[in-house]
C-alpha cells in the first residue's frame, strides 16, 4: 500500500472505485448524463427547425402499443425485420401514440436541467452566506443565522408550490422555488466548518502575512470545506429531481414538455385500463437515477468525511 500522502480527492476517488456497486452507480449516472445530453440535442434540433418534435407528435393509430419485446418481434421471416420491430417503440407508446422511450429521455433531460440549475442557485447562496457568517462573526453572523432560521421554518414543499404560484407556471417557478429553499442545510454546515477552520494555525499564519479576508476565505479555507459542497450537491440533485416530479405532477412545474412528473400523471390513468408500460418506464427511470445518486453519494460521503476515516482505522 502506498504510504506517501495523497490528496483527499485522489484517495477518495480510489476508494470509490473499489466497490462494485458504486462503480455501477457511477456508470448509471454517466448514462443518465448522456441521455440528458442526447435529449437536449434532439430538443434543440427540433426547435431550430421549428417542427413538432417526434416525441410530441400525436399518432392516434399507434396508441397503447405495448413494448416491443412483448410483441414477439422475431416471429417474422427475416432477422433484420425482427431487429427493426424490436427498435420500433421499444418501450411502447402512450395514449396519444407518442413513443415512451423518447419521452422518458426528454424527461431525463428536464430532470438533469432542474438538478443542475437548482444546485447552481442554492449552492452559491449557501456557500457564500455560510462562509461569510462563519468567518466574520458578529452582526453578520447573527443576520445570516436569523435568515436561515427563518427560511428553515417555512414548510418546504408548500412554500415551493406557493413560490411557483406567485412566479407563474413553468420551469422558472421550479428553479426559484427549489433553489431558494434548499440552501439552508449547506449554509449551516459551511458556517460550522468555517468557524472551526478560522481558529486553525494556517489561517492565523495567513492573517499575519497580511492577506485580506476575501483571499483567505476563497483561497485558503474554501478548498478545505469544499468536500461538504460536493456531498451536498450529490444529496440535493436527486432531491431536486424528486421535487420537480411532484410539481410537474401537480401541474405546477413544466408545461408542455414531457417531464417525468407529467408522464406519471398521464400514465396513472392508463394504469387502471391495464396499460402499465409508461408508468413502469418512468418509475424505473426515476428509481434508477435517484438510487444511483444515493449510493454514489453515500460512498462519496464515506470517502470524503475525515471523521469516518479515523473510525475505520480502529
Amino acid at each position: 500500500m502506498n504510504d506517501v500522502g495523497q490528496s483527499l480527492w485522489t484517495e477518495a476517488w480510489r476508494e470509490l472505485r473499489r466497490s462494485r456497486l458504486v462503480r455501477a452507480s457511477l456508470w448509471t449516472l454517466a448514462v443518465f448524463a448522456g441521455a440528458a445530453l442526447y435529449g437536449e440535442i434532439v430538443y434543440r434540433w427540433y426547435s431550430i427547425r421549428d417542427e413538432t418534435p417526434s416525441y410530441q407528435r400525436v399518432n392516434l393509430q399507434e396508441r397503447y402499443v405495448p413494448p416491443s419485446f412483448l410483441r414477439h418481434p422475431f416471429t417474422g421471416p427475416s432477422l433484420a425485420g425482427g431487429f427493426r420491430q424490436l427498435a420500433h417503440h421499444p418501450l411502447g407508446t402512450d395514449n396519444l401514440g407518442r413513443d415512451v422511450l423518447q419521452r422518458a429521455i426528454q424527461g431525463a433531460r428536464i430532470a438533469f436541467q432542474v438538478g443542475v440549475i437548482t444546485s447552481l442557485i442554492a449552492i452559491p447562496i449557501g456557500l457564500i452566506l455560510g462562509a461569510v457568517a462563519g468567518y466574520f462573526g458578529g452582526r453578520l453572523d447573527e443576520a445570516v443565522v436569523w435568515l436561515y432560521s427563518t427560511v428553515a421554518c417555512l414548510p418546504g414543499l408548500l412554500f415551493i408550490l406557493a413560490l411557483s404560484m406567485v412566479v407563474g407556471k413553468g420551469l422558472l417557478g421550479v428553479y426559484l422555488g427549489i433553489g431558494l429553499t434548499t440552501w439552508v442545510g449547506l449554509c449551516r454546515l459551511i458556517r460550522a466548518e468555517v468557524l472551526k477552520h478560522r481558529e486553525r494555525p494556517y489561517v492565523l499564519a495567513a492573517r499575519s502575512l497580511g492577506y485580506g479576508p476575501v483571499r483567505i476565505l476563497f483561497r485558503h479555507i474554501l478548498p478545505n470545506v469544499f468536500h461538504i459542497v460536493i456531498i451536498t450537491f450529490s444529496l440535493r440533485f436527486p432531491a431536486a429531481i424528486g421535487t420537480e416530479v411532484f410539481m410537474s405532477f401537480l401541474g405546477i412545474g413544466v408545461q408542455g414538455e414531457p417531464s417525468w412528473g407529467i408522464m406519471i400523471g398521464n400514465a396513472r390513468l392508463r394504469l387502471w385500463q391495464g396499460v402499465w408500460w409508461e408508468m413502469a418506464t418512468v418509475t424505473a427511470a426515476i428509481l434508477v437515477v435517484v438510487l444511483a445518486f444515493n449510493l454514489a453519494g453515500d460512498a462519496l460521503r464515506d470517502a470524503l468525511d475525515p471523521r469516518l476515516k479515523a473510525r475505520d482505522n480502529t
Partner: protein
Amino acid sequence: MTSPIKSYVLRRVLYMIPTLAGIVLITFLLFDVAGGSPAAMVLGKNASAQAMEEFDESKGFNKPVLAGLWTGTRALEDADFSRSAGALSGATGARFMSDHGGGWVRLAPNGACAVPFVFPPRPGTVFSLRFAYRGERPAAWALQNADTPGPLEIPASAEWRTAELIFRTAAAGAPAVLTLRAGAGAFDVRALRLRRRVAHGWDSQLTHYLGQLARLDLGVSTAANRKVTDLLREGIGPSLALTVPIFFGGTLLSIALALVCAYTRNRLPDRLLVLGAVVLMSVNYLVWIIAGQYLLAYKGRWFPIWGFDSWRHLALPVLIGIASGLGANLRFYRTVMLDEMYKDYVRTAFAKGLSPAGVLLKHVLPNALIPILTNTVIAIPFLYTGSLLLESFFGIPGLGGLSVNAINSADVDVVRGVVLVGAVLYMGASLLTDLCYAVVDPRVKLR
C-alpha cells in the same frame, strides 16, 4: 432564584421573536408584494376593472405597500403615450403623433378630450392626476362632479413639463368627469398618472396584514368564501388522523429495525436492511402512492380507494406513509445506534459478559434515544401540514388537500395562512427540541 433551565428557556423564547418577525416578513413579501393582487387569477381574465378594484379593496391590496399617502387605482392605469394612443385611441379630438423621440397625443386648438377612466373614480376621495404636457398656448381643465383647490388653467410651455392636478370627487351622485380643453393653440400630452390618496400615511398593506395577524384573522378564502381560521380548524383533524399514526408507527418500526441492524452489525441482515433502506428511499413518493393505490386497493381490493368515511380509509395511506419514510429513518437510526456501539462503555459491557441483546436494550438504546428524540420532535410540525400528496390522492379533507386546492385556485389567504401557521409551529417544535436536548442530555451546557 431562576434555574439555568428557566433562563435558557427565556432566552430561547426571546430569540424566537426576530424569527417570528422574519416569517411574517417573508410571507408578506411573497404573497403581497411579489404576487401582487391575485384579482386577475381569482376573478378571471375577463373580469371588469371595477370588480377587480372591489376585490382589491376587500383584501387590502389597493393600499400602498409599506407606507405612503398615495396609491394606484385601476380607474386609470398609468398611461404612457410614447408608443401609441393607448386608452385615448378612440377619443375624438385627440390624435396620436410621433417623431424620432417618441410619441404623444395632440389636442387640436379649442379641442377637448376627457380623461379615459375605466370606471368612475371613487366618490368623496382625493386624487392626484400627474400629466406631462407641452403647448404653445395655455389650456384648462373642466371638472364635473369634482372640485380642485388649485388653478384650472395650465400655463403654456414650449418644452415638456410635468404638472399635477389634485381633485376631490363629489361625495355622491354622478360620476366625476375630467375634460382637458385646449386653448387657442394645439396641446400635447405625453403621460397620465392617477393616484388615490389614502386615509393616512400608515394605511398600507403591511399594517393591514399586521393588524389582521394581531387579531388572529388569517383572511377569507376566495374559493370557499369562509374564514381561513375556520378552514384550518376543520382541516387539522383529518390531517392529524393521518400523520400521527404514520409518525408513531414509522418511528417504532424504524427503531425496531435499527436495533436489528445494530444486533447483526455488518452481517447479512444488516447489509440487506441497509441496501433495502437505500432502495426504499430512492423510490419517488408519488410512485409509492400510485403503486399502493393500484396494487393494494384496486387490484387487491384490500382497502378502499378513496374517501374519509371510516378508519379503513386511513389504513392504506398510513401504510404508504410509513413505508415511504422507512428508508430514511432506518438509515439515520442505524447510524445513531452504531455510533453508540463503537463507544468504550459498550465494549466494557460486552467484556463484562452482558448478552448482545442486553447491551442493546439496556445501554445502547437509551443513549441512542437522545438524538433520535430530537430528530423526531423536529418532525412534529410536519404532522400539521399533513401530507400534501397523500391527502390529494386519497381524498382526505385535511390541510394538505386544502393547500393543494388553494394553490391551484390561487387562493392566496389560505396558502398564506397554512404557511404562516406551519412556520410558527416549526418554531415551537424547534424550541421544544432544544429544551428536550438540554433536559435529557447532561453533557449539554445551557448557554
